[in-house]
């Protein structure tokens, strides 16, 4: 009984992390029509930067949350810079843009290997969240509950931002019809930079938040990127709800698959993607056919 319950909590936690990762991926795809293949790298860089801040790379040690936020901000700046300096040069050439993100992801992976070495770095659970919550006979790790809470808060905040603010309205207009958005005076190219930075920052934040659960190691980027791809193909591009539901589904399949069919976990993970591709090409909540 408690085995299943713990597995469920782990699944939802992982789903929450995936949501932080894939919400940005999905928004970037919805707006710019390209899969950002550096998204896994941003997750990893966020985590690496965070661990450096934790261990006092700045001359003083930050606490976990400050390190996560500072790391996320840096990754956001890096993402925005990459959009400005590299992708902007190739405006309108989607294929070239995808290939550039692929090239950059290899460079980032190698730079991280150079900077932080090949050994996995484990991240200590932040102060005060190392314990457990008891509910009857079941025991839940406190930190995982906190991650679920953070994901929910971010989901609501993102939803409010997209639905209730001027910036959100402009982003939605850009996703629905970029040409028309330009015609009515929205600077879509500026939105590209903002959304790219936002998505990168979210991924970097997710990387550090996921640190105590996944730890940080070379290859983390390649592990996370396909998961973001699956979430977006499942949920549909440019849809926040799609990312949310897709993340939870993938979180469950990944954790249950690893517990029950360890050898085929990765394969099982992609089955729903194949089903969606065959039966509902636009994804569960997506507007446009992928």
């Amino acid at each position: 009984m408690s085995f299943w319950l713990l597995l469920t909590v782990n699944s939802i936690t992982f789903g929450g992390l995936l949501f932080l990762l894939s919400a940005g991926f999905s928004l970037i795809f919805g707006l710019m029509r390209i899969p950002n293949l550096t998204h896994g790298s941003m997750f990893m860089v966020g985590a690496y930067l965070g661990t450096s801040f934790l261990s006092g790379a700045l001359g003083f040690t930050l606490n976990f949350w400050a390190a996560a936020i500072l790391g996320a901000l840096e990754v956001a700046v890096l993402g925005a810079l990459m959009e400005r300096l590299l992708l902007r040069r190739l405006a309108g050439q989607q294929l070239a843009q995808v290939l550039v993100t692929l090239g950059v992801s290899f460079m980032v992976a190698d730079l991280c290997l150079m900077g932080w070495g090949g050994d996995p770095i484990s991240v200590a659970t932040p102060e005060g969240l190392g314990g457990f919550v008891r509910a009857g006979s079941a025991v839940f790790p406190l930190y995982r509950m906190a991650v679920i809470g953070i994901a929910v808060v971010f989901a609501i905040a993102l939803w409010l931002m997209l639905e209730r603010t001027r910036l959100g309205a402009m982003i939605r207009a850009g996703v629905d019809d970029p040409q028309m958005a330009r015609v009515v005076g929205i600077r879509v190219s500026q939105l590209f930079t903002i959304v790219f930075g936002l998505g990168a920052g979210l991924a970097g934040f997710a990387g550090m938040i996921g640190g105590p659960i996944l730890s940080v190691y070379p290859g983390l980027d390649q592990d996370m990127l396909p998961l973001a791809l699956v979430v977006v193909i499942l949920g549909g591009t440019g849809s926040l709800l799609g990312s949310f539901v897709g993340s939870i589904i993938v979180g469950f399949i990944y954790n249950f698959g690893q517990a029950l069919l360890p050898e085929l976990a990765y394969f099982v993970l992609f089955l729903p993607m194949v089903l969606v591709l065959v039966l509902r090409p636009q994804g569960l909540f997506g507007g446009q056919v992928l």
Partner: protein
Amino acid sequence: MNLKLVAVAIAVVALVVLPYVITEPYYVNIASQILLYAVFALGLNILVGYGGLVSLGHAGLSGVAAYGVAYLLAAGYGHTVAIAGGLAAGLIVTAGFAALSLRASGISFIMITLALGEIVWGLAYRWISITNGDNGITVNSRPAPFGQPLTSAVSFYNATLIVFLLAIAGCAVFVNSPFGAALAGTRDQPRRMNALGFHVWMIRFWAFMLSGLLSAVSGVLFVYYNQFISPQALALTASAEGLLMVISGGAATLLGPVVGAALVVIVKNVVSAYISRWNFMLGAIFVAIVVFMPEGLVPGTVRLVRAAWRSAHRNRSGRPAAAPIAEPKP
């Protein structure tokens, strides 16, 4: 035309005598590597260059063939069965890839092939009872076709050269065939081709199968060359390397992928002798080529030579240079 024939004859003779000129086994092995990667790049080019469909999962196809050979050999079968089984496995997986990914084109095609390639990688990595996981499978022997063992570097080079020449001749025939023209048509004008009565999906499917066959062949060569196969050969990096060969050399040209394969293999070996940062170089070359020379080395050089030729002989008109990779329509 005669000039072309002479050039081809000289190139073939040069390739045949190459191992007797350089003799050093290390360099002969690098030449074998270039040829086997060239077969892979030729296969990928059919899809990327002539079909306008950029695949990021092709290492999975050659990997399945390689694993098929290694698994059957480890199970005690002979080389003939193992090679046939490996190619068959490669083709079956190719058919699955094609069926799933060809419902899309453009960017979505990249995403789906990437995800499918990752599935195959994940299986190779995690399905330990079949693939031996990260430890990989060792292949203890090389085949001996017609009683000629391929154990030495030169004999393996010769076998690879024969396969390579067959592959490039096959590609030349394909490109100039009505089927090749139809494939290029589906790249440039899919709707018009459809209206003209061509079955766009079916043309793309068979092009994918041909591409998969060449990938599988290179996978078989790969596993016999290294006598070892591990999940690393199926990773996204390997697919990206193949794509870099096609794009750097020049997509939709016959020679481009071969030049690209030579470039990548040589840079990889030279660079890894000095620094251990091959992945960084791969990424940097990728970015530089996409940003500064999107048409690739071969068409770029051809254009320059043609321009020089034309300025020398004013009244002769050259054919336009090959088009860069088709931009997918959103």
